[in-house]
């Protein structure tokens, strides 16, 4: 076991090195951003379960591991190795290996005029003027130690700039590959997506890992949705079972901006996904749609903080979880309605299927309302596969494994149906299909079925 001081020393070493060499190390504003981030991290350290926002999730496995910055992962990666991770029908696919942009592995594609999709480090060096007004402007490093840590190491990731009025029809795909080159390597990808007024686009963050070994990916995306923008963001986590993945999506929404965030958590050992939209302009709409499917000892934590800061905004949160084995899921949905945000309409729903006795879900709605003319609702359910439905399918000739898979897929499709038809939805559907088939195959069919017959109606309402 290493002490908090030793943990910090380890990070200090990485930080000193990074600070000297990283892109833009001579830029005073960036230097300050990094230093402030690191100072904040040193001050608070990793969160513990005493911290309300981390009540259900113990990150000591991350704190206890002496992670080093992954520096040279990409030399040995070939196009061929990435073949399985390509997504058909996208506008372009940028590849990041251990958080660093790998141009030679990326598929450029054709983009509308004036639009920019590139690596953040290159942009910091070549065009810092475009970055400075946005980078770190929206993220609150005081709220979350992982965000502070990411900011300390801010250097590379994706930079997407969508000019005013631009319509990007095909999705922009960002593939984050972690490789197990070093014993315990970490990366802190930082993405900046700036969508100017009246633009429309879909952005996909896809997290995969190529080799085994403990890897820690701590990513932050700042998404600036200008007035009247229509944006979709996907976060797909499908790393291996030893991976730690902490991600934060901070959305700043302008007037009448319509943003949809889809989180699909399938892989990883310990995964925490934070979605934090601030509805800063009047009439904004935000849909947060999530699906998490866990097995083995996976820990999948979904944390949302929806801030209504302007009048007449609507937000919707829908999360479905399927948990088997010893998997543990968390849904923590916090909605803050500020004093000025009258006529807010906020709703959150979390539905869960627990397929084994040892699977666990913690679900916590948290509404803080400081305005007096608002509509806020929340609800959560926990259930099992319904035996009556299973028998119904089987009595029509569908074998038990297929019947279970159909029922699991039906449950997951509530989330799929909120995704627009197109290449990303097909991609997600395929991943889910694969995942659920495995689950249906390994599920202990009849034995649990009979036991559950006694419970009668299988859904339990909470809250």
């Amino acid at each position, binding site marked *: 076991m290493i002490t908090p001081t030793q943990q910090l020393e380890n990070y200090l070493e990485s930080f000193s090195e990074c600070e000297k060499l990283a892109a833009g190390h001579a830029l005073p504003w960036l230097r300050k951003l990094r230093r402030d981030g690191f100072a904040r991290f040193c001050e608070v350290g990793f969160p513990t379960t005493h911290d309300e926002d981390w009540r259900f999730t113990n990150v000591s496995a991350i704190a206890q591991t002496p992670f080093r910055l992954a520096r040279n992962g990409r030399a040995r990666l070939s196009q061929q190795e990435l073949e399985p991770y390509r997504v058909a029908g996208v506008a372009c696919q940028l590849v990041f290996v251990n958080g660093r942009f790998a141009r030679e592995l990326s598929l450029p594609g054709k983009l509308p005029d004036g639009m920019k999709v590139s690596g953040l480090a290159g942009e910091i060096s070549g065009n810092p003027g475009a970055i400075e007004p946005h980078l770190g402007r929206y993220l609150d490093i005081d709220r979350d130690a992982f965000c502070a840590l990411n900011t300390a190491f801010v250097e590379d990731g994706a930079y997407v700039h969508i000019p005013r009025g631009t319509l990007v029809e095909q999705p922009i795909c960002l593939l984050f590959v972690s490789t197990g080159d070093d014993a315990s390597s970490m990366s802190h990808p930082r993405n900046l997506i700036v969508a100017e007024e009246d633009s429309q686009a879909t952005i996909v963050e896809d997290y995969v890992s190529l080799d085994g070994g403990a890897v820690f990916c701590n990513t932050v995306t700042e998404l600036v949705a200008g007035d009247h923008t229509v944006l979709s963001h996907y976060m797909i986590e499908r790393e291996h079972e030893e991976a730690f993945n902490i991600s934060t999506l901070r959305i700043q929404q302008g007037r009448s901006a319509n943003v949809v965030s889809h989180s699909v958590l399938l892989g990883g050992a310990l995964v925490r996904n934070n979605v934090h939209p601030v509805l800063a302009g009047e009439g904004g709409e935000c849909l947060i749609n999530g699906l998490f499917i866990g097995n083995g000892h996976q820990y999948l934590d979904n944390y949302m903080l929806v801030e209504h800061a302007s009048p007449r905004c609507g937000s919707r949160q829908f999360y479905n979880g399927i948990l088997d084995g010893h998997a543990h899921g968390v849904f923590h949905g916090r909605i803050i309605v500020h004093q000025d945000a009258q006529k807010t309409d906020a709703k959150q729903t979390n539905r869960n299927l627990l397929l084994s006795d040892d699977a666990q879900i913690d679900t916590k709605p948290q509404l803080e309302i400081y305005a007096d003319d608002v509509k806020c609702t929340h609800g959560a359910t926990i259930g099992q596969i*319904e035996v*009556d*439905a299973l*028998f*119904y*399918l*089987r*009595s*029509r*000739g*569908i*074998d*038990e494994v*297929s*019947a279970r898979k*159909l*029922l699991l*897929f*039906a*449950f997951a*499709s*509530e989330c799929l149906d909120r995704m627009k038809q197109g290449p990303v939805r097909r991609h997600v559907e395929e991943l889910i299909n694969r995942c659920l088939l495995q689950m249906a195959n390994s599920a202990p069919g*009849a034995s649990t*079925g*009979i036991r559950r*017959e006694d419970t009668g109606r299988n859904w339990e309402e909470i809250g």
Partner: protein
Amino acid sequence: MCLLEIKSLHVKVDNHEILKGIDLKVNVGEVHSIMGPNGSGKSTLAQVLARRETYAVSAGEVSYNGRDLLAMKPEEAACEGIFMAFQYPVEISGISNAYFLRSALNAIHRYRGLDEMDAMDFLPLFREKLKLLDMDEKLMNRSVNEGFSGGEKKRNEILQMAVLEPKLAILDETDSGLDIDALKIVAQGVDAMRNPERAIIVVTHYQRLLNYIVPDFVHVLVDGRIVRSGGPELALELEEKGYGSMEAEVRHATPV
């Protein structure tokens, strides 16, 4: 040819004996009706034949098409040609009716070594059967039974039966809760499926359905036993006298 033979079937639920020795023989081409008061064991019999695993068979044998039915899983029984129309059809959200039915048909086709059907092949067959049951095509893209009225659910059961073309169809109180118009449509749908290759067992509480599906044989089930068997006239007798007289006969015959 004998399709189903039940010998001295005893079934328990929660250690309580529901069926206390049923004997029944059904030949292909025949329509049998099993009638009885509530709680007599009619639905239990239907569910056991559809192989619901929560019913424990404590004694007896069931042979179907020369094979031991009690050794089959529900999906196997279905693939061998048994179909039960549920008394309470289950709602399944997230699976469309059309997809469900095609999956079922293809599972049966696979089992029998026949070609699977894609959505395009399936459509004409589907439309034909929908028409037979006077069903709106829109129901097909909705989730299985979700938000269907009682009558729509029952019609949907018969639609499934018409598509899957079973050798032995068991209707478990398909008439309950149906108004007369819906009843006629359902009955016509079933009657259209009568043929010399198929047997049908109609489980019902009331005689009304049997005006439209005239059975070859009627059996009266009281307290887990078949107490009378006869022709269609037996149903009319029951309609007139009610189950009371037969229940009294049973009480009389059973030593306390």
